[in-house]
């Protein structure tokens, strides 16, 4: 990779160890992805915020890093493990709370906007189309490339962090126009569609796709279906983008393929609790949910995950009251994936409409999963 004199000096440690480390990461990624130069990025979105995912190693690393690192560009962050406002209601040990607080402080010290959300594309004003950003959260990277017209690779936690510190990223993969053209089309053949089928479509596509994939037969995706597709796609593979125009080899996604995905992810026919919000729900989806829940109440405990940015609106519009009246809990700053609030010691199986949530609940939280679409959940799990 060709570096400028200034970049070379930083890599050699002439501007301090932190910048040297950041450039080492960028050079390794540049070599791995065949990039010849670094280019500026305008916005970094970081993953690696939840103590459950990064552990003591991550907490100590960030604490050390924050002693002298400062983010050079706008930097937003993924959800943490819990919501500080309501954490006392849950049985969570003090060590977790203290470590999570440490991680939050380190990110804020380096200059992060405390967004704690996996849907930055829904809560922040977006830069103009074609702008390079560096998004580590996989559903957000895919959404940014496919829907928002931004350019990012499916970044790793450390690559986005290095981009936040340097304001740069290697110019490779999806940052290069020619790699954004898909050479494989997944043909959506499932007739009855909801966000769960789109999530399973994404999970299927991610396993076979390279950097970019075409999805045919999926026009007019609404926000819920689209987020579900992005999250499923980001979970199973390395794909960072989809288009809705067919190209190249074609593979069908039909009822049979969908059943295979379901068999892989689903381990229970029912569940003790319901979770909604991986990715977190935005204001439109909360408003839809309020309409669907009119006159109903959940038969089981239901946890709904949202970004803090919409908390006041949810309250002021009266949605919070209505959702709580239906027996559900609203949680901010966190999401289904690896939340310590769901543990196999107190939960056997979880009902969710999220394919991404299902994957991590099963593999990381160690609980069983029952997949149901939102309308199925409202029909079957409320009275």
């Amino acid at each position, binding site marked *: 990779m060709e570096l400028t004199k200034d970049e070379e000096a930083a890599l050699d440690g002439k501007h301090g160890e932190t910048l040297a*480390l950041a450039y*080492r*990461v960028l*050079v*390794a*990624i540049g*070599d*791995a*992805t065949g990039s010849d130069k670094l280019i500026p990025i305008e916005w970094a979105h970081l*993953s*690696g915020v*939840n103590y459950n*995912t*990064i*552990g*003591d*190693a*991550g907490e*100590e*690393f960030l604490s050390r890093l924050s002693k002298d690192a400062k983010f050079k560009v706008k930097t937003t962050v993924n959800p943490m493990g819990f919501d500080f406002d309501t954490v006392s209601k849950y049985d969570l040990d003090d060590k977790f709370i203290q470590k999570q607080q440490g991680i939050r402080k380190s990110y804020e010290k380096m200059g992060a906007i405390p967004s704690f959300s996996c849907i930055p594309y829904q809560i922040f004003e977006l830069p103009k189309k074609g702008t390079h950003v560096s998004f*580590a*959260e*996989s559903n957000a990277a895919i959404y940014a490339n496919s829907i928002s017209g931004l350019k990012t*690779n*499916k*970044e*790793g*936690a*450390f*690559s*986005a962090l*290095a981009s936040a510190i340097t304001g740069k990223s290697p110019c490779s*993969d999806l940052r290069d126009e020619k790699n954004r053209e898909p050479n494989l089309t997944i043909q959506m053949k499932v007739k009855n569609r909801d966000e769960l089928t789109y999530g399973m479509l994404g999970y299927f596509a*991610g396993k076979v796709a390279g950097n970019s994939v075409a999805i045919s037969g999926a026009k007019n995706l609404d926000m819920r279906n689209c987020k579900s597709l992005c999250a499923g796609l*980001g*979970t*199973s*593979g*390395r794909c960072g983008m989809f288009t809705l125009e067919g190209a190249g080899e074609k593979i069908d996604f039909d009822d049979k393929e969908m059943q295979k995905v379901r068999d*892989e992810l689903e381990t229970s026919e029912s569940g003790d609790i319901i979770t909604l919000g991986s990715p977190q729900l935005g204001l439109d989806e909360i408003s839809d949910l309020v309409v669907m829940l009119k006159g109903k109440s959940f038969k089981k405990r239901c946890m709904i995950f949202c970004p803090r940015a919409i908390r006041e609106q949810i309250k002021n519009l009266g949605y919070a009251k209505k959702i709580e009246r239906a027996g559900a809990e609203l949680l901010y700053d966190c999401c289904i*994936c*690896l939340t310590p609030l769901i543990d196999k010691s107190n939960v056997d199986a979880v009902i969710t409409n999220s394919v991404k949530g299902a*994957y*991590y609940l099963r*593999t*990381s939280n160690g609980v069983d999963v029952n997949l149901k679409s939102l309308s199925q959940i409202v029909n079957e799990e409320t009275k």
Partner: protein
Amino acid sequence: MNVKIIVRGKTKGTLLVSKNPINFLGGIDKKTGLVRDKNHDLFGKNLANKVLVFPFGVGSSVGAYTIYSLKYNKCAPLAMICLKADITTASGCAISNIPLVVAQKQDYESLRDGQQVSLDAVSGKLL
């Protein structure tokens, strides 16, 4: 064989060959190095102190922290050999100082589980 160097270093050890890609965050226990994804071909095996051979990393970007945690918890692979190094694996290995190389398809396919190898990720040789 010649390999492309992504993260430099030298090591000797036993190959652990994975047919499937790896989602480090969901698939690997960061405290022990055990593969805990029941659907993975390495389920129940341990990555610790092995030269890990896998096509590429998939899934969560936080997998980079899992790689760092494996190193911190002294249960990381000695080195990694990929067919196509992805960003999460490359950045995770760079921060953790775990040698990472990419082998060409034919060479990659000749690697066998349990084989003893010597990896020189400074001059780019795997013996």
